[in-house]
């Protein structure tokens, strides 16, 4: 039995993925399937809520690396929110803060998406 689950929850124009448990090389495929499902539903704005994520290895981080480019090309992004410090440390070890929006709360992630929408509209 896998100690990992992904919940789907819409929040405005974004889809929130609630991660729970331990994300490793065995469970990474579940996160990958969740992101693919969002893409299939034409959702490119994804917020990963890590409040209940207890553990991540490089295999889990690799899923974010594999999909971020496609989602940004489609006008969206993956914003990562509410990570526990021990999980954030692993993101930091690989330099993720240089590449990803990692914020303290889901509300901050929504605010970032909203700010990007305003910028895009003003440029148009």
């Amino acid at each position, binding site marked *: 039995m896998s100690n990992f689950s992904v919940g789907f929850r819409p929040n405005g124009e974004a889809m929130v993925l609630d991660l729970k448990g*331990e994300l*490793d090389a065995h469970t990474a495929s579940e996160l990958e399937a969740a992101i693919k499902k969002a893409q299939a539903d034409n959702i490119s704005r994804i917020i990963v809520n890590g409040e209940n994520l207890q553990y991540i*290895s490089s295999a889990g*981080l*690799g899923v974010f*690396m*594999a999909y971020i480019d*496609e989602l940004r090309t489609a006008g969206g992004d993956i914003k990562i929110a509410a990570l526990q410090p*021990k999980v954030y440390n692993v993101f930091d070890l690989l330099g993720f803060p240089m*590449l990803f929006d990692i914020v303290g709360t889901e509300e901050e992630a929504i605010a970032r998406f909203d700010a990007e929408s305003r910028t895009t509209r003003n440029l148009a």
Partner: protein
Amino acid sequence: MQRAGLPVTSHDAVVRAKPALSVTNAVGRSTYHLAIPSSTSHLEEVRRFVEKHARQAGFNGDAVDQLKIAVDEACTNVIKHAYCGNPDHQVDISVNIASDRFTISIRDKGIRFDPNAYHLPNIFESVRQHRAGGYGVHIMRSLMDQVEYRSKGPVNEVCLIKYRQASPAGTAECGC
């Protein structure tokens, strides 16, 4: 045979459908063993095994977390690269608790990893190429005081060592 993105041969035929545990003791030291099939479905069990003994050895929460992720990365590399994802082999994990250090040994009989050929991928390049791998060795080296690879005959071993206090210059006591 080495692994560096080259074809594979691996030797041992499997073994056990379920993990096996054993313990050996010597004066002032304790060694615990876990054998698992070469499948990522056993990674959680490996982490629990290391967590239990690291806590018993008195390591703090941060150190325990670091040992767990290091052994996960090492076993994942063995499963994915030494055995190319074939679950019909065995991975042997040993934990040795000494007065000054905690040593995890991971052994396989698959394709040998050449640490000298390893280069940390560029994260921006990984994103551009939608590629996700190659970061496990970096994590192990970042979190452990020593990471040593060795091979003897068909057996490959990686040793992950964490000292109780700031790392002295020492020699890893791997069993190869």
